[in-house]
């Protein structure tokens, strides 16, 4: 999980309250850390207590027979100790409910007002197909590599041309389903330039394991220059991937065709 120090300051500033905000990477990191710590703590305590009891009350340490021990043929009833039970139950309820309530704030934030200034976001359409991704920019330019500027919130509208896929960029902690006939919306924001990998997270056929795409995060200026150079869907060479994109049937029934897919996909990209 990469995070620049400057951006961290930005995140903390923006944060204000206890609800984690910031890029998805940051949000995930914070929440995951808290969950992991608490989860480990609870796990260790509970399992430890359980083992301790089982050992402590092991048979054969010379304790006498309980006169009230269960007898064969009795009607089932409960044992005592209800108070302790409710105490622990109450405690666990408080922990779980407050954890989830805490993350709910972040959910609302992630869903409804992602970082970045209002109205300044770029909207890119993502179309999944067997077995690759097509990215369509507002100007109609389409490519098989996703290029985005650094430190800007990019909105993605994701759909599929054939079967159910899931679009995700693990390092940017963004993920959403690509469903034929439906569009899902999400956003991403990268605060470090570099090349990341996007891939499919829902089984979609023989090439599923290879259904990847490159995500290139660029300096804003560089991005602007590149973007200005692109044009509509029937424009220059950059759009070559659009032509071969949606024809899912061509890959049908070709079990061994899969490994060739990534090679084909990446060779399509001509960097401007």
């Amino acid at each position: 999980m990469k995070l620049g120090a400057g951006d961290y300051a930005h995140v903390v500033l923006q944060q204000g309250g206890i609800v984690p905000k910031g890029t998805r990477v940051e949000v995930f990191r914070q929440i995951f850390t808290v969950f992991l710590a608490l989860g480990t703590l609870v796990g260790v305590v509970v399992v430890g207590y359980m083992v301790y009891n089982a050992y402590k009350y092991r048979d054969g340490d010379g304790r006498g027979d309980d006169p009230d021990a269960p007898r064969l043929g009795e009607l089932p009833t409960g044992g005592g100790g209800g108070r302790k039970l409710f105490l622990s139950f109450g405690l666990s309820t408080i922990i779980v409910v407050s954890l989830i309530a805490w993350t709910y704030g972040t959910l609302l934030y992630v869903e409804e007002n992602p970082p970045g200034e209002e109205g300044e976001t770029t909207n890119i359409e993502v179309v999944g197909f067997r077995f690759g991704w097509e990215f369509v920019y507002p100007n109609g330019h389409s490519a098989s590599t996703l290029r985005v500027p650094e430190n800007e919130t990019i909105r993605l509208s994701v759909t599929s041309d054939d079967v159910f896929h899931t679009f995700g960029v693990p390092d940017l902690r963004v993920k959403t389903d690509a469903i034929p006939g439906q569009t899902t919306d999400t956003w991403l924001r990268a605060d470090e330039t570099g090349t990341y990998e996007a891939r499919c997270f829902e089984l979609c056929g023989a090439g599923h394991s290879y259904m990847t795409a490159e995500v290139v995060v660029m300096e804003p200026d560089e991005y602007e220059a590149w973007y200005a150079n692109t044009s509509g869907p029937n424009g220059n060479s950059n759009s070559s991937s659009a032509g071969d994109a949606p024809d899912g049937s061509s890959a049908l029934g070709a079990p061994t065709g899969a490994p060739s897919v990534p090679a084909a996909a990446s060779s399509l990209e001509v960097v401007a």
Partner: protein
Amino acid sequence: MTDENTKADGGVADATHGADHHHDLPDPGHVKRWLVTTNHKDIGVLYTITALFFLVFGGVLALLMRLQLWTPGVSLLEPLQYNQAVSAHGLLMIFWFLSPFAFGFANYVVPLQIGAKDLAFPRLNALSYWLYLFSGILMGVSFFQGGTFSGGWTMYAPLNLPVYTPNIGASTAVLALTMFTASVTVGSVNFLTTMHRMRAEGLTLRRMPLFTWTILLTTWMMLFAFAALLAALMILSADRLLGTTYFSATGHAGSLLWAHLFWFFGHPEVYIVFFPALGVMAECFQTFTGRRLVGRKWFIAAMVLVALQSFLVWMHHMFLTSINLQIKTLFMATTIGISLPFDLMVFALIYTTVKGKVRFTTPFLFSFGALMLFILGGITGVFLGAVVLDYEFRGTYWVVAHFHYVMVGGVTALVGGLYYWYPKMTGKMYDEFLGKVHFALYFVGFNLLYFPMFVAWETPRRDFVYPEVFVGWHQVATVGGFVLGASFLVMFYNLFVSLWRGEEADDNPWQYSTTTEWAIPSPPPLENFPGKPTFRDGSLKFLPGAGSRTGGTGGSVADGGEFTVEEATDGGASVSQAADTHAADEPESHASIWPFAIGVASFVLLFGLSGLQNASFPSGIEGGFYAALTVGGLVGGLAALVAMATEEFHALTGPFGESWPFEGVENTKLGVWIFLASDVVLFGAFVGSYAFIRVAEGWTNWHHLIPEAHVPLPGLINTYILLTSSFTVVLALVAAEKGSRWGLVGSLATTFVLGMAFLVNKALEWLHLFHVHTEAFPQGWNIGTNIASSTFYLTTGLHGLHVIAGLIVTLYLLVRAWNGAYLDDDRPVEYFGLYWHFVDIVWLFLFPLFYIL
């Protein structure tokens, strides 16, 4: 029951099988015994063994995958082969191993625990088993029809359609699952009727042992959840075989529809596979700590809550789809809500050990281990309940690790159950040392296998390419997988050898066990009990004679937790003579070949149907082969059904004491009602699918999909016809009550004619629509023309099939009424009426939905 099997302990086991000679059942040594048996203990054994076979099947596939994952990329399996392995592994483990494994115990133990001699419908119980076995074989066959289904166990649409998964084997797998679903439905009806109607006196619902409680709740969930799955699978089969267009991609959200239907079933399924394991844990914890469950009342209440709520959380599997934020919030809340009762259950189990006398026998070790694994699985599940985290975990090994901790955690408890009840089921003791070795290997192997998956969670699921940094973790996991597999070899060896060389097991080998199965011989005789079990006085006694309630004490429980058998021996012996004379006129039956025959026929039928595509068989020899199988299976199945209906068979009727809340609803009637309740969900899911699709299209933006020729009139006429036929069925019952033979025959005949008229009218209507020729529909309005035609034909077609089934029964009743039946016992007419009116009611909704609105 006979004298020789009510001896004092020790000698009991040998004597038991002697009793069988008095029945229609061959010896256990004969193969025939196992084909015809309808006895719940036999069937329990069959379930257990078959389930273990499928464990091996699914396990081998898992090991193949683990080998592939040794390094990233293709090695052992080609991509599509890997996908098949993932899919079949998931399907086999969940459907053909986990649930049936639990139902092996349910079959064996539940009747014993509630004090019933068998299930309410023994032949249907056998039928459940055979449908289960043959559906599993069909699943196996699918591998040889060009490859089995490769779209994951969730079978997401539209990957599940022939365009993307064209193998015939993929269709076969879907049909195999459909057949399995039928088995589950039959089984649920049976168990629910039994558990509600046939409990021993004093054994109120609140007093039922915990294992029985978990099975009761499991079967209720099964009844409704599997009905939804049945609807989903029927629609999928229609899409694959007949060419309807529900799930094909665009426009009407077919993809989402599948997700809704599947997960509406899928989440309850999580508890369906886990509850029995919970029941085993509760039993083992109580027995091996010598303590009663802490907060038992709340434990049960928590389970009831979970069972109900399990139907209201399904969309947490769809957080990344296009569902709206409000519904995400709602389902996040219900999901967290449902996790809380489990905390209570876990703490209840833990506190039960306090102040106990904990004995680390093999069953306890497995139960204890299961609880630990479940705690880990539960904690990691809370991560997934936080939607923001779920966004990232979806489709990764976090999910894989989590559900294996939960589900295989459940398996762990069930393995404990196998050791726990092994002495009861076989009369032999397993080797305790080898049992402990098994546990050690199992527990180490398990954690080596699954814990690394949490660490390497960024591995994409159902994927064999993963980041290089995780190679080490995956190799540890693979090693763990093999250790886990090896541990089962130890178990198989132990259990197999102990059958011959094991020590004889006492009636009650476990100190502090309390439930009824431990108060009778190991293995129990065919009739289970040395008298009529009752808890009237607060603890178990066996009363002499089935009818008399005032008879002396048969057996009783002495202080100190050991069942004293001397008393039982005397009492039991004298009792059995009385019982023999009493029941001589109608001994219970234990054998029928027809369930097996129906199983075979269904197998053949579905195997044949798998060859269909777009409603036609392929040409040539292959098509002929499939067509012949279809016809053969259909004819054979009908013949076997009729044979089973006409066969003399005496089942238990109950009630034996407690039957809340269904006192006064006779077994068969209750069975029919429970079945109808599941049918409500089946049709509900069909109607729900239609509504969903229409909403997705825009509810009022629909009529352009339907030709002008589709007018309400034929539907209205059919409404009149069905209403009238309902009325004549009512008249038939009135006539039967009055003893009027010709009134009965006349009413039934009228019903039959009306039913036929309904079908003919429908056929004419359909033919007309098939051949409309308009600008919008130049090729006619066929089943695959568009989504409106698909929903129309399939939904009303399913209803039509119900009418046809009803008419077959009408015909059967008619023939028998003609010969004078039903005048002294009109119940068959009444029960048929329940079904027929239900079919009528369904039409009352289909008519406005598909003709008017």
